[in-house]
């Protein structure tokens, strides 16, 4: 006979706060810089030679001879705002679409919702942004909207794929049997079932959105190409990567922090859910031992 270990599972009580702290720390730095940075800057000094490190310039100069530190302080707000706004907007559009497609039993409706998106998918996103933006000449806000729109087909497909399974569960039938409305079923149940996938997708998409905006700026659309914007900085200063690395490394690290922080926070937030919401009563074999009597 082998004794089975008894276990009192204190799920991740030690590691979860740690992950929260790490995520929060990673996120706090860029967020604080973004919020407070613009308040800390003075007027611009004269331009120096590009990609040099003259005295008085903490992080040297960028491709246009501007002070990198000053640009870093100024450049967070737009990044944070654009990333958040575009991601939120993208999902505000993609979620209803995807859930409608996943929850409907009418093939024609699903096709009607999803096929036009496929058309947009077939046009490379950068080309799309480039073409539309040149034709309509949007401002920074318009560009954020456009970038969000470009991401909609993509997000909608992924959400639909993960929602399709949840939408076919008996629980959904039971909800229907209770006369629950579409919204409640979609957002209250199906969305909840795909929460993890949604979070994973949104986390990465946010970063993608940032750089799409930056690349568009480089191609002359939207934000000014010498704008103080971390993503634009990474993009434009890359030519000086080996001469004056700070101009790329610092904003890139801030973006990495922003993206990693959000994702880690999301992961940590979701980590507890799984055990609490698990459908099974049966859980995997215990790992930790406690109180062998």
């Amino acid at each position, binding site marked *: 006979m082998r004794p089975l270990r008894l276990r009192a599972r204190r799920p991740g009580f030690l590691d979860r706060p740690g992950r929260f702290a790490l995520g929060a720390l990673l996120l706090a730095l860029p967020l604080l810089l973004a919020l407070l940075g613009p308040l800390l800057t003075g007027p*611009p000094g*004269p*331009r*120096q*030679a*590009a*990609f040099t490190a003259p005295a008085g310039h903490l992080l040297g100069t960028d*491709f*246009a*001879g*501007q002070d990198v530190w000053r640009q870093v302080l100024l450049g967070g707000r737009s990044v944070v705002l654009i990333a958040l706004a575009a991601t939120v907007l993208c999902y505000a559009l993609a979620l209803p679409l995807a859930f409608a497609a996943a929850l409907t039993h009418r093939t024609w409706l699903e096709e009607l919702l999803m096929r036009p998106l496929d058309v947009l998918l077939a046009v490379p996103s950068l080309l799309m942004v480039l073409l539309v933006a*040149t034709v309509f000449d949007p401002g920074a806000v318009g560009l954020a909207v456009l970038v969000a729109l470009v991401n909609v087909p993509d997000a909608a497909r992924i959400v639909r794929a993960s929602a399709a399974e949840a939408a076919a569960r008996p629980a959904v039938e039971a909800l229907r049997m209770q006369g629950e409305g579409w919204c409640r079923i979609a957002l209250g149940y199906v969305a909840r079932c795909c929460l993890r996938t949604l979070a994973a997708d949104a986390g990465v998409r946010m970063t993608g959105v940032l750089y799409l905006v930056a690349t568009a700026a*480089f*191609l*002359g*659309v939207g934000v*000014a*190409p*010498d704008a103080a914007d971390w993503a634009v900085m990474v993009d434009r200063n*890359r*030519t*000086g990567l*080996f*001469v004056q690395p700070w101009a790329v490394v610092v904003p890139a690290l801030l973006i990495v922090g922003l993206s990693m922080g959000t994702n880690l926070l999301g992961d940590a937030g979701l980590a507890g859910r799984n055990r609490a919401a698990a459908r099974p009563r049966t859980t995997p074999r215990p790992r930790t031992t406690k109180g062998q009597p």
Partner: protein
Amino acid sequence: GSGGGSEDASDGDQGPPRRGGRLRAAFAGGGANETLDPHMAGLFSDVARAKALYDKLADFGDDLTPRPRLAAKWEPNKALDRWTVTLRKAAFHNGRPVTAADVLFSYRRIADPKKAFRSKADLDPIDLKASRAVDKATVEFRLKRPTAEFPDILAAFGAYIVPEGTESFTKPVGSGPFRLVSFSPGKSTVLRRFDDYWDGAPYLDELEFVAADEESARINALLGGQVEYAHELSPTTARAHERGGQVRIVRLKNSAMQAFAMKTDRPPFDDKRVREAFFLIADRAELVRGALSGAGEIGNDLFGKGYAYYAKDLPQRAQDLDRARHLLKQAGAENLKVTLDTSDVAAGFTEAAGIFRDQAARAGVRITVKNHNPDSYWSDILDSGTLCSYRSGAMPIETHISQRLLTGSTTNATKWRHKDFDALYQQAQSTADRDERAALYGRMQRRLHAEGGFLVWGFADWIVGTAKNIRGVARNAPANSLDWARFDKVWLA
């Protein structure tokens, strides 16, 4: 050439030239749109290829004066409207000699009204119907009007001589130093030495042009030993590798004029005080530092620094914000708001625009920078807008004037239209004496310096990287001149 900017210039070209080997040169390409038709050549890669395969009658030296090439000499008549060009003994790759008929055929092809080749405008002064071949080696060109600078036309961009009757360029036959082995557009072109080249056979056995659009790809390929010549590098790259010793950096000075073009025919720039104020707003050193990464020289609101006829004696203009403010006040243009059109069409444009915006702000002028689509930028700014970023490649000063500053000029981006100015130019073209002409050009430039539409703030270096073992690369030839991208005098040490 010798004595360039590079520190190891002295030991650079030592030793006798050596024959043999293959040189790979990376140029930004035009993708699948690259062409072997020399008359269609528009991109630097096309031009370099055309130069290797073909010859012009003349080409520009380092100071942008025409040097004889296929033409051994040229003689005008008194009235300067009939020029006799004598060809030197040269042969095409198929062994056929280059004749007057070839020259006339080529020029007529370029000028074909149905074809719209780039140098059609350059050849405009020639009356090709009336021009004729005197004998096999002599062409008589009749001109529509006296043209003292006729040899400039022979050296015009794209005026290459192809064999009579050529229609297809899939197997091009030229008289250049190299002959074609293979060509795949957007990828590579392989050429081999033409042993019977009139100017002496090249040292290289083979020359390969590879297309690499991205600057970092070109420098990486050079550093990695995948190419031996990388055309068009950025100042930052140059700085990063100049002292590294892995590659040599060649800076071709005065290659590209950098300017802001003001439209002189509309407010606010129809007032010459406003134009002068703008001249005074610019801190040229800061612009060169910031926008060109220091790789260039400051300008004096005149085209052609270092070229023949350049008005060197005019005082260098410097920033003077007080005077600028004063002039603006006089002109009633306080709190002036201007839109500066720019685009990412050329290196440094958007940077310069941003810097100038900040400089102008200090003089109380509010500039809004508007970014344009690079693909249509040049035609966008030609007629619309008031202020725009501008640049120009190397060309003789007189060509610059004739193409951009005369009432009838087709690309008059500053809308500089003055009858007296036109008259001065015509007078110069009818003047046979070079010094007299120089004096006339000087008068014209003085006027432009005082009240012209071009705020020329700098001249960018053209930066080329070569492998350590490459010798014979010209160090003083501005882009587009004869010795630029010229590979028949280059050898592998």
